[in-house]
């Protein structure tokens, strides 16, 4: 267990460095000087030069690289051009909303996905299988944000079943937090549920055609028991292997779904910053999401190792 975690951690470190390096290099790709972006295009050259010196932009490449890395490690990602606040603070403020939405979407995706996948995968070729396969094929093609629009329209505007709620932080009111998450989570999770269902279906069908299923059945075990006690764990391994990708898709889609439900998440901040050319925020946002993705994958990799004895380092 300890070995497994340290092994995976060791793999994550170079990934983090690599991502940080790419994010740093983004600075060099932006056309025009950041100083001009701060001061506006009409600023005189002396002031631009002064600001550049203040930001350390006149330093050589490696000096800038190490300075940037040094402060990034300490959590300093610079200040916003637009509002002048530390980027890290701005991002962290918005993290809970994004995490809530992604978490809600993941719960919906996993619950619906595994159920549909199990229904089809345990009886491949049956009517149930064909129905679930058709449902997932169609669901995959529905854009998450459009589903959000329709859900909002039907359940909140027309039927009034679910109140149109702004995001409420969990520490303020857990009930309102949960209520506000219902529709966004469904909108976000259904598409990924289809992906999980497809993967689960294939995996379960393959698992149940394995030789050991016959061995266990031959000991007199019921099919239900073979499927749930033994088949499920085997079938979950490939599904878990693709969950990292699912989470990444959920994070990306949460940016768009978040706009439909006016979620004050990182997506909203990123969007404003992209439009407003607030580059440090964009840079910091990319880095923070990348770190989030790497951490999620690290956790999933460890779960994968726990589930699959062959993946444990000897």
């Amino acid at each position, binding site marked *: 267990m300890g070995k497994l975690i340290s092994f995976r951690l060791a*793999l994550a470190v170079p*990934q983090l460095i690599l*991502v940080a390096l790419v994010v740093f290099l983004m600075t060099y790709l932006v*056309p025009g000087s950041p100083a001009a972006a701060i001061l506006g295009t009409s600023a005189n050259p002396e002031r631009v030069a002064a600001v550049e010196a203040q930001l350390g932009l006149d330093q050589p490449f490696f000096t800038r690289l190490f300075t940037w890395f040094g402060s990034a490690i300490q959590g300093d990602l610079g200040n916003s051009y637009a509002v002048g606040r530390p980027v890290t603070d701005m991002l962290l403020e918005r993290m809970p909303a994004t995490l809530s939405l992604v978490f809600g979407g993941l719960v919906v995706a996993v619950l619906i996905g595994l159920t549909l996948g199990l229904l089809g995968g345990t009886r491949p*070729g049956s009517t149930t299988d064909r129905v679930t396969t058709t449902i997932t*094929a169609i669901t*995959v*093609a*529905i*854009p998450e*944000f*459009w589903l959000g*629009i*329709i859900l*909002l*329209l039907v359940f909140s*505007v027309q039927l009034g079943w679910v109140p149109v709620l702004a995001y409420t932080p969990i520490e303020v009111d857990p009930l309102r937090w949960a209520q506000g998450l219902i529709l966004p989570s469904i909108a976000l999770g259904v598409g990924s549920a289809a992906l999980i269902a497809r*993967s689960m279906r294939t995996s379960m069908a393959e698992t149940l055609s394995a*030789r*050991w299923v*016959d*061995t*266990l*059945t*031959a*000991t*007199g*075990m*019921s*099919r239900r028991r073979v499927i749930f*006690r*033994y088949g499920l764990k*085997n079938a979950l391994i*490939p599904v878990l*292997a*693709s969950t*990292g*990708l699912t989470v*990444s*898709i959920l*994070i990306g889609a949460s*940016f*768009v779904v978040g*706009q439909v439900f006016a979620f004050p998440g990182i*997506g909203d901040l*990123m*969007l404003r910053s*992209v*439009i407003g050319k607030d*580059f440090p925020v*964009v840079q910091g946002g*990319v880095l923070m*999401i*990348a770190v989030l993705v*790497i951490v999620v994958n690290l956790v999933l*990799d460890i779960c*994968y190792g726990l589930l699959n*004895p*062959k*993946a444990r380092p000897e």
Partner: protein
Amino acid sequence: MTDTYSINLTRAPKPEKGTKSPSSAKRIFDRVRRQPLTVAAFFVIVFLALVAIFAPLIAPYDPNQSDYSTLLSGPTSAHWLGTNDLGQDELSRLLYGTRVALVVALGSVLIAAMLGVPIGLLLGYRGGWTDRLGSRLVDVAQALPGILVALAVIAILGRSLWTLMFAIGLIFTMGFARLTRAVTLTERHKLYVESAHVVGMKERVIIFRQVLPNLVGPIIIQAAVFFGSAIMIESGLSFLGVGLDRDTPTWGGMLSGAVEHQAQQPFLAFAPGIAIIITVLAFNLFGDGLNDAITGGVRKSPRKKLTTAELPGMSNAPTASAATLPGQTYSMGAQDAATAAPDATSPWDSRADEIRTPTGATETLPDPVEGAVLDVRGLSVSLERPEGDVVPLVSGANLSIEPGEIVGLLGESGSGKSMFAKAVMGLLPPRTRLSAGSIMFDGDQIAFQSQRALRAVRGAGIGVVFQDPLSALSPVHTVGKQLIEPLREHKGMSVAEAKERAVELLDRVGVTEARSRLDHYPHQFSGGMAQRVAIAMALAADPKLLIADEATSALDVTTQAQVLDLILDLRDEYGMGVLLITHDLGVVAETCDRAAIMYAGEIVEVGTTTDLFHAPRHPYTSALLAANPASDAQVDRLPTISGRVPLAGEWPVGCHFANRCAFATEACTSAPVPIVDQVRCVRADELTLEAVPR
């Protein structure tokens, strides 16, 4: 993160040899043509392309023409899909929106392929550090949310059509790079690339001549799938307002406007969303269909229920057609089936003393054997092919096993011997059915019983050991858990008791350090040890019969002998009957009291091991003995049986072995040969066959 995304690689279709040749392109086209859904998807795509091209001609209005007299209207005769907040015609904007969707998707997929394929080729071909570092970078980049990558690109480059295509293209670049790298890696180790090296072709030439053609298929499939995703992402970015400017009609942009004015005009949200879904669905379905056509995978054909009417029946049921069938090769198609309509799923009528074999003959069954632990009479198994025809796999097999007796079932692969065992256990694979027969286990009928009823017999009555021990145990559960389960199930033991018993059992079958090995996983065992564990599992509930289905075939010779000795010892100790299924004459000679010889779905001869080896009565038995190198050390050439085994579905109406038999006469091929006095040969009484010299 490497493990996390391995699924992408495994999902990547194997490059099929010769996807480049025109004949295979035609074959793919033919396959696609036979998939109605794929064809429909293709026509939807063509339709969308036509809409995009001729949008100015079809659209009733200029998409940017504002009509301030009808703002936010629902569907009217003038504006079929209503108008937006600027009074612009939604239908016209929808039609023009097709242009952006398709152009951006096409552009981004092309950009992705142009960037990704060279990267993949470089990584796959260079290998070493380039590959290690590059692949890591590609992995990390692919792990990032696509929208995030696109936002970063747009933040750097600003908004334009080209930026949008590049931003979306960059997301898919990694997918193409990984795919190309994987294909290149497999291709470069193939013989022809290495021989091209020997011939002295330049590396670059090798890549372009040999590797690229094999990439075409997978890349096209990947592109079709990315196309759908690209449309989704484009609509998302347009919805967020970072795609194209507002004057350009886009589906995402229309939805953005619809959300703003949702309260006033809810109708506006529907049409653009449905357009996106239909477009994405068309590309996804087309990609899936193309994938199936190129990789040769068969899409699940609609399942046809195996109706009892299609099964060969028993003679005690009305079988008017019996007389019409003999005289030609039997094919159990629906035309025959319609006439024979016994209810094969109903419990076997124990009074029946005849069955009708798949070849249409009526065969008299032997008398039930009193006191046998297993008495199988007239067992027949058939397979329903996806195309719908029913093929017999085992026909009219009779075999009985006394308590404490070891009986061999000997046959070549495909002879139906494993099907026989699976039928006894009620574990027939999908599409195969027990079509007739009586299976008496310890005095009880177990043929045509429900799975629930069979559960009491499995484990506690009959234990099974399969061929490959390593695949016979669940790889992700400890051996202990799998061994304890049947003990708890059948013996009602507590966990602690079951654990003690499991240790005893493992100890008994010769697994050393049994207690500590309970916590081990199957892959931590050697083949021989894993097979001992499998035997322990089969024995856990003290069965009266042990079926060993090629249980020693996968093991090396020494281990094989040890495992066989173990089975012999256990037979003596527990007094159980053993059915030993094997293709190995030596195994039968060494261990079995009696044996049955199986050929092309039929048992051709049954007898004591001594009789079979020294006085074979069926020409096939004799030929089998002669072909066994160990039986005669003096021959300088390995004798073989000429000809080949007829495949299931191609069985002749007469003796199945006739076409290879040196003694065949007219009588052998004209009519089905029944098993009489333990041998299925019309000339059994007149032939004196070669045997193993005493």
